[in-house]
């Protein structure tokens, strides 16, 4: 790899959940983290977002130790979408705008928000009450929220766990185009074999907190 990695991890230990000797996550690439439930995948994503800190070891973001970066500034560049994103009181529009407010950025016109909803294949009015949304719809509002922030790095925790196969495929196509066109780094935890085989460019497999496989996808 000619480019330096987006994330590099060295001798990381966290409770008895994670123990990673060495791991690199390349920039401008779609990386899929796979492994059984409870193997530490979500914990690893939270580490990259600095929502939790390792007990020992090092995480470097673009060559800088994560401890030397302001955590809030980092999270604005390395945005994470949890598996079940919380909905805030109010409409779908409020739930998108709140991300901009968190990031200290001005609101955008409705037309932009509608475009975002189309990209995540969510056919809902912006005035829809967020409480009435299903799990899959919430997941897509959550994804739209991340896309609205347009960060250089996106960390997605099982973004399609509540979606059917077809919607997953449509959204992954959109995401892939977005990542490639805008030179983004996408790291996603997934259980879907189809997503891994169709979209992953880099695969990390975790078992009981250890990286057991790290490979680039072999083009078929």
């Amino acid at each position, binding site marked *: 790899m000619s480019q330096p990695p987006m994330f590099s991890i060295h001798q990381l230990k966290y409770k008895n959940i994670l123990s990673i000797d060495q791991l690199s996550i390349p920039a401008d690439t779609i990386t899929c983290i796979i492994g059984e439930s409870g193997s530490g995948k979500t914990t690893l994503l939270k580490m990259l977002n600095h*929502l939790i800190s390792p007990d020992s070891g090092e995480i470097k973001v673009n060559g800088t130790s994560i401890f030397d970066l302001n955590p809030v500034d980092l*999270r604005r560049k390395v945005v*994470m979408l949890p598996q079940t994103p919380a909905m805030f009181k109010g409409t779908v529009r409020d739930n998108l705008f709140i991300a901009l*407010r*968190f990031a200290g950025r001005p609101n955008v016109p409705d037309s932009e928000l509608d475009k975002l909803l189309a990209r995540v294949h969510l056919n809902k009015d912006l005035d829809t009450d967020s409480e009435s949304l299903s799990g899959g719809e919430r997941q897509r509002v959550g994804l739209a929220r991340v896309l609205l922030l347009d960060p250089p790095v996106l960390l997605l925790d099982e973004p399609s766990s509540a979606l059917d196969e077809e919607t997953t495929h449509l959204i992954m196509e959109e995401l892939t185009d977005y990542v490639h066109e805008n030179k983004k780094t996408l790291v996603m935890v997934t259980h879907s074999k189809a997503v891994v085989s169709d979209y992953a460019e880099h695969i990390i497999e975790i078992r009981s907190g250890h990286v057991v496989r790290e490979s680039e996808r072999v083009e078929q």
Partner: protein
Amino acid sequence: MSSDLTLWQLASAYLFIVILLIIVRIKGIPREKEILISSVRMTIQLMIVGYLLAYIFTHAHPVYTLIILVFMLLFAIYNVYQRAKIPLNRELKKKIAISMALGVLATLVYFLMVTLSVSPWYNPRYVIPVSGMIIGNTMTGISLGVNTLLNGMNANKQMVETALMLGATPREATRPIINQAFDSAMLPTINSMVGMGIVFLPGMMTGQIIGGASPLMAIRYQIAVMLGIVGGASLTVLLFVQISYMAFFNNRCQLKENELNVKSTH
């Protein structure tokens, strides 16, 4: 009716309670002990306070006034700790104490010095009752605020985490919870202002009127004290929520684990 209540007259009030006790006993409601004990306790407490105040009023001295003030404040802070439904860690306790002390003192200085122009500044006849009312109401407000904040942080952990993941500062991430804590702390004070004079006549005003003051003068004092209570309670709760939300985060703006629900281990 004279303005002095004789001991014989007071005895008639006890007679009323004795009759009540007999009725309660005949009806077989097992509460006579509680009524008796609380009546006796109330009598003793008030007698002590009465003699204490009588002494302090005739021997007015800044030290006496200050001791009483500090005692009231400490008792109120202790009461807030006791009323918390979730055990408080040391950091939160410290923040409650700081906000109570600062909020109450700032309010008292302003209302006693500027509004009531109490002279000399330690005049116990004014300082003690007014402080008691302001501290008491502040205590109720902050108790509710503490409970709402703790419950809100517990119930909305996922929401706070989602916000942090998007790059929110801890302040932004907890804003709805902080606002809710402030609302619930202020609700009783706001409700009592709304009902004031219509649903009930406040104790202080009633006391002044019975003591011979004109109702028009009594309401002036009541309004001033009520505003002091609103000011004191809101200032204290404002201070508390502003400094205490950070107790749930570490210096890396991460939600502290184990901070909610359990006592701090350090």
